[in-house]
């Protein structure tokens, strides 16, 4: 009796970490075997990350140093935040190509509102807090716009967000007049450039957002609905879930998180450029998929996408530390992403 209770509470605990498949197979007898199987399959990206860290550390003594590990976390933080939003969109069965441009526009808008003494800025010299609020609202608004036309009007998500990607990049160009806006107030610089103790602020923000959105996805109704809508929209509709509302909310979260990413990026660069964040949408999709989020929607564990981002950044940093010629780095990155997706596909087959 007691034994059973223990294993049940253990299951519950594990479920908190997003082990959906365990609950389904939980009724079977050999639970321990299942747990191992699931950890290996569902969390294999962490094993890969561990392997990569081990191999890089054995190749160069400079890899496993506090400075370098903090660097990798810091380099991961902005992409990591954007990846949360992209993953939520992918989980709901859609796509968001506009995140990179939203990052660019958010930074540009923040700079335009706050920066003083440059002709391209607004000259309002807004305090960082209202400026950040405005930028976040604009991010949510972008998500609402995308979500409305995709969910309610039924436009194709790929093409809709492709159009907003181009449009928003153009908006960033208008806001900055094509110039770099720079020199933010110190309190704003703290977000992306400062540290809390030894840990960069941006890393703390990223981890906090991961925890919040992990909680929303796994312990809130809306989170479960996102999984169901992404897995099978017809079934979701039959269950009385408002698919439109769920998709719109997913896009709003994506827009919000991209805006946070834009704030962190501009703060870290202490400047905003028209082209900031371009290409980030593809990095975000790559990291999500490496982290095991299914492109078909409804399947994947958000926390694993941190590992996806860390894999990308560890390899990027590792290649520099190992003096790999720059001409080879791009090829290597493409190759690594290809292998990750190959592994993901094989994993699904094993399951």
């Amino acid at each position, binding site marked *: 009796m007691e034994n059973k209770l223990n294993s049940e509470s253990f299951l519950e605990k594990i479920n908190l970490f997003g082990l959906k498949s365990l609950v389904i197979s939980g009724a079977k007898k050999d639970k321990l075997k299942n747990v191992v199987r699931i950890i290996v399959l569902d969390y*294999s990206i962490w094993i*890969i990350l561990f*392997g*990569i860290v081990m*191999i*890089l550390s054995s*190749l*160069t003594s*400079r890899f496993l*140093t506090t400075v*370098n590990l903090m*660097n990798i976390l*810091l*380099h991961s933080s*902005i992409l990591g935040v954007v990846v949360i939003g992209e993953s939520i969109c992918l989980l709901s069965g859609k796509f968001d190509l506009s995140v990179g441009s939203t990052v660019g526009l958010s930074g540009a808008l923040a700079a335009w509102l706050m920066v003083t003494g440059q002709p391209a800025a607004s000259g309002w010299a807004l305090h960082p807090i209202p400026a950040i609020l405005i930028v976040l609202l604009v991010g949510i608004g972008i998500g609402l716009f995308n979500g409305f036309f995709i969910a309610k009007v039924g436009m194709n998500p790929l093409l809709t967000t492709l159009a907003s990607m181009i449009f928003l990049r153009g908006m960033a160009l208008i806001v900055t*007049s*094509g*110039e*770099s*806006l*720079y*020199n933010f107030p110190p309190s704003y610089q703290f977000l992306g*450039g400062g540290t809390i103790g030894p840990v960069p602020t941006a890393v703390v923000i990223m981890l906090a957002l991961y925890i919040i959105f992990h909680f929303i996805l796994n312990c809130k109704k809306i989170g479960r609905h996102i999984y169901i809508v992404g897995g099978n929209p017809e079934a979701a509709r039959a269950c009385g879930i408002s698919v439109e509302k769920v998709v719109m909310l997913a896009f709003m979260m994506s827009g919000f998180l991209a805006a946070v990413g834009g704030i962190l*990026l501009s703060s*870290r*660069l*202490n*400047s905003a*450029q028209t*082209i*900031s*964040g*371009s*290409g980030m949408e593809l990095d975000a999709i790559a990291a999500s998929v490496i982290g095991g989020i299914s492109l078909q929607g409804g399947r994947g564990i958000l926390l694993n996408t941190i590992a996806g981002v860390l894999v990308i950044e560890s*390899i*990027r*940093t*590792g*290649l*520099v*530390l*190992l*003096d*790999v*010629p*720059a*001409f080879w*780095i*791009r090829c*290597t990155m493409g*190759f*690594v992403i290809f*292998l*990750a997706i*190959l*592994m993901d596909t*094989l*994993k699904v*087959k*094993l399951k």
Partner: protein
Amino acid sequence: MRRGRLFLIGILILTTILMVSSLGVCAKKTIRIGYAAPSLMDEGQVAIREGAYVTAKKFGWAFTTTDAERDASKQINQIESLLARGIDALVFVPVDSAALTVSVEKANKLGIPVITIDRKTTGGKLLLTVQSDNYLAGKQAGEYMVKLLKRKYGEPKGLVLELQGALGTNVAQLRGKGFNDVMAKYPNIKVISKPTNWYPDKGAAITEDILTAHPELDGIYWHSDCIGAGVVPALERLGKLKLIGEPGHIFLVGIDGTRVMLGYIREKKVDATMSQPLLDHGKVALEFLRAHFQGEAIPTSGLVIEPGALWSPAHIQMVNTGPLINLATTPVDLTNVDDPRLWGNMKKK
């Protein structure tokens, strides 16, 4: 079934190993330069890097290159990785002058000397900035244009179109000022100036419009050969591209000295281009760096002369980040277009 599964697991393990097997080797202790390129898809940037790389090898220094793919945040990350890796000096071409100040400040904090090439950062402390003398390039282009007009009319007069870069940039301002300071001396030469934002298609469109309005146009001067790369085909399309010496030839003079433009000069389509000493930027930077390592101070004013070098004489001035050296540009026309020292003639690897 079981064997199939083992096979799949085998592939899983193999791919994990493959994911990291493409990584390189460790290096021994020598002076190491970290070189952060803004983009290795731009031929000018490849030339600058090549010059620095060859010089480092000559000195027996190790050299690590990164490629930021025109992304400022990527370049900042890469410089952080280079600093964590351990380098003795940082040499780089900033993707963005404002954003990369962050990296310079970080290197300053660690006491690593920093040299920027092609442009400086807005802040931070730089050991040196090496760039082409853009004012001189504009002036040389102006003088060349005057010479051509004099030859045509017997006196300096005519109508010239100036295709400007992006007006907000320092480079376009200097290349414009150098040219217009010369033109101001000749009241009979009229200059029409139009911004192109460095875009070849925009340069082509403006050329077409101006030629419609002013068919008598005598010459075109562009701030960068990347603009000219759009203008020459546009003239060809309009049937206005006559070779040098043919009646109706429009004088074409530019700045940069790209491979494409040197080709046009050989074909007698373009009159001249003011070549930047791109292969020497890295060389000059590393020579000053070596002097710094040997305890010599970097001069803050005056001329630097090296007989026989394309970049000489160069003049040094003091700016907010530190000393800045302006390397001379070289007018290139049919008489010297095959000079192997020109970066546009650099051998393709």
